[in-house]
């Protein structure tokens, strides 16, 4: 187990290093002077020159790379040419809404995928087959941004049940910014009307993300549960007189969910990739929308910073998923340790 832990962590560090090399190369591929890009397009020539020296662009490439990595570790990600703020400052503002959206979506997704997966494994019939088939078509054929747009078309433009986008209505004064999470901030301020409004605004983006992934998680859970149900311990539990519900929750799911966890890690990566599209459709003020806006003006410092950030988060989440896998499944621990 210790050896695996070291190897797996070393691999994650190697990946992080590769990401930094990748963005460093991109920074030098951009036509023009990196100092101009990092200083922002509106910087004065003296500022650019100062940054040129500070970045060590007159030094050899390996030295430049070293300085680049040191800057990254100090969270110095350059300036946005559009907002004229350090990218780090912008990210502080844009990150909480994204975290809120992703965490909420993932929580609901996991609950739905597991319950529906377990349900469809025990209720083989027309209905569960139809649910799975429909989910597969939605999940694999439709691009997530179109799915998001369709939800908006139906529930906002046509039915008028839900708002078009954003965190609050345009006329609503946002609550004091404590955490940046709309649900928590409105609750802290005790403004329950706004809290409900924030919930309203979360429904469609969350639904888009959940629906896009649901089929995959559902099928994976179902396959895994079906396999576990064949095991002798299930028969034993049945013979002892356990209820089906108890067998499922106490015995089967505990074993069946292990393979699902590493799938979740991978899916997390997909969401990070697509989040910009979903946030753009719904005008959700997170890093995805920040990325979209930066792409419109080819504002490179934030583009590269978001690339770094999302890739790094992806690597760390997958590392955690793999380690969690070990914690949850003692059999693997023994095998890996051997």
């Amino acid at each position, binding site marked *: 187990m210790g050896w695996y832990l070291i190897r797996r962590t070393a691999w994650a560090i190697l990946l992080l290093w590769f990401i930094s090399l990748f963005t460093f190369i991109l920074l030098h591929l951009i036509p023009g002077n990196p100092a101009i890009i990092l200083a922002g397009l509106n910087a004065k020539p003296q500022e650019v020159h100062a940054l040129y020296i500070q970045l060590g662009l007159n030094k050899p490439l390996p030295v430049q790379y070293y300085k680049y990595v040191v800057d990254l570790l100090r969270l110095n990600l350059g300036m946005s040419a559009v907002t004229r703020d350090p990218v780090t400052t912008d990210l502080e503002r844009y990150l909480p809404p994204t975290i809120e959206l992703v965490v909420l979506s993932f929580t609901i997704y996991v609950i739905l995928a597991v319950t529906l997966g377990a349900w469809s494994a025990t209720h083989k019939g027309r209905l569960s087959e139809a649910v799975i088939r429909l989910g597969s078509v939605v999940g694999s054929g439709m*691009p997530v941004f179109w799915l998001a747009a369709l939800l908006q078309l139906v529930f906002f433009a046509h039915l008028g049940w839900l708002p078009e986008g954003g965190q609050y209505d345009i006329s609503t004064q946002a609550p004091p910014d404590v955490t940046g999470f709309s649900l928590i901030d409105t609750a802290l301020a005790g403004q329950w009307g706004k809290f409900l409004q924030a919930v309203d605004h979360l429904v469609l983006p969350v639904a888009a993300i959940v629906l896009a992934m649901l089929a995959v998680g559902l099928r994976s859970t179902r396959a895994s549960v079906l396999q576990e149900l064949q095991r002798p311990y299930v028969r034993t539990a049945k013979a002892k007189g356990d209820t089906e519900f108890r067998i499922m929750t106490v015995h089967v799911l505990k074993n069946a969910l292990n393979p699902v966890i590493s799938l979740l890690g991978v899916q997390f990566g997909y969401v990070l990739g697509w989040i910009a599209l979903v946030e753009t459709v719904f005008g959700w003020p997170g890093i995805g929308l920040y990325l979209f806006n930066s792409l419109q003006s080819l504002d490179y410092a934030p583009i590269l910073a978001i690339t770094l950030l999302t890739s790094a988060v992806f690597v760390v989440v997958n590392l955690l998923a793999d380690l969690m896998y070990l914690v949850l499944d003692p059999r693997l621990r023994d095998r890996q340790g051997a």
Partner: protein
Amino acid sequence: MKENLSGIEPDSPDVHDSTIPKRWSRAGRSERTLLIFGVIVIAVFVIAAVDPHLLAPQSPDALYVGPPLGAPTAQHWLGTDELGRDFYARVVYGARPSLTMSVLIVAIGGAFGMAVGLIAGFVGGWLDGVLMRFVDLFLALPGFVLALALAAVLGRGERSVVIALSIVWWPSYARLVRGMVLELKHRLHVEAARALGASGPHVIVKDILPFMWTQINARVSQDLGYALVNVAGLGFLGLGAQPPASEWGSLLESGLQYIATGWWLTLFPGIAITLWTVAVSMVGDGISAMTRSEQGGSRL
């Protein structure tokens, strides 16, 4: 490695021993229906990409041929956009940039990945180790995010999107093909060919490649749809084909501004993308069903 003791060729590709009618009847009825549907959709899309004028006589760029944001009518089947351009023509003309980019990405990424996989699997040793670590590195990172940054840095345009997505596309092919080579190179017929003195390239072309097509076909047909979704995603973000080209992703993005007044601008580009992804996967499934051998699959 599984030993092949049961016979010389238990699951040879039935490319050589089966006629088309025979294979046709081997696919189930619903598979055949879906296959026909898929082929028709793909044919229409390919015509749209090759000669859009055939399907849409109207110009996609002519301004105010109809009212701005006009709903679908008999004259303008898919309505008109905010500048009064015929939206049907715009969607049809969007096939060329959208499909060209997708096909190129799968072709370039697939060919390069296959080459790497063949070399890694066949040569083995340290070269295999190095190449596969590199593949692992790519597969452990979010490809779409990397491609997005790369395309942005290379500048807007179709070329950047093709380059960027091809670069994140090849590793999965390398891994797939390497796995198959490792299995195939210990088959009796390959060892026999090598014992008879056949050269490496000869063995690869004659004795290994023919056994891979079923799996490669399945992957390629799925990927053609997946590539389009990625291309449209980058187009949506403003990379890729630039206006006035009506690439489907960018078309959808500009349609979103009129979601309350012009539903057709959001609906139809998405239908085009989804039809393509569904059609290519149906054809892929159909071909897999047709090449399936009676004993239960020519898959490795």
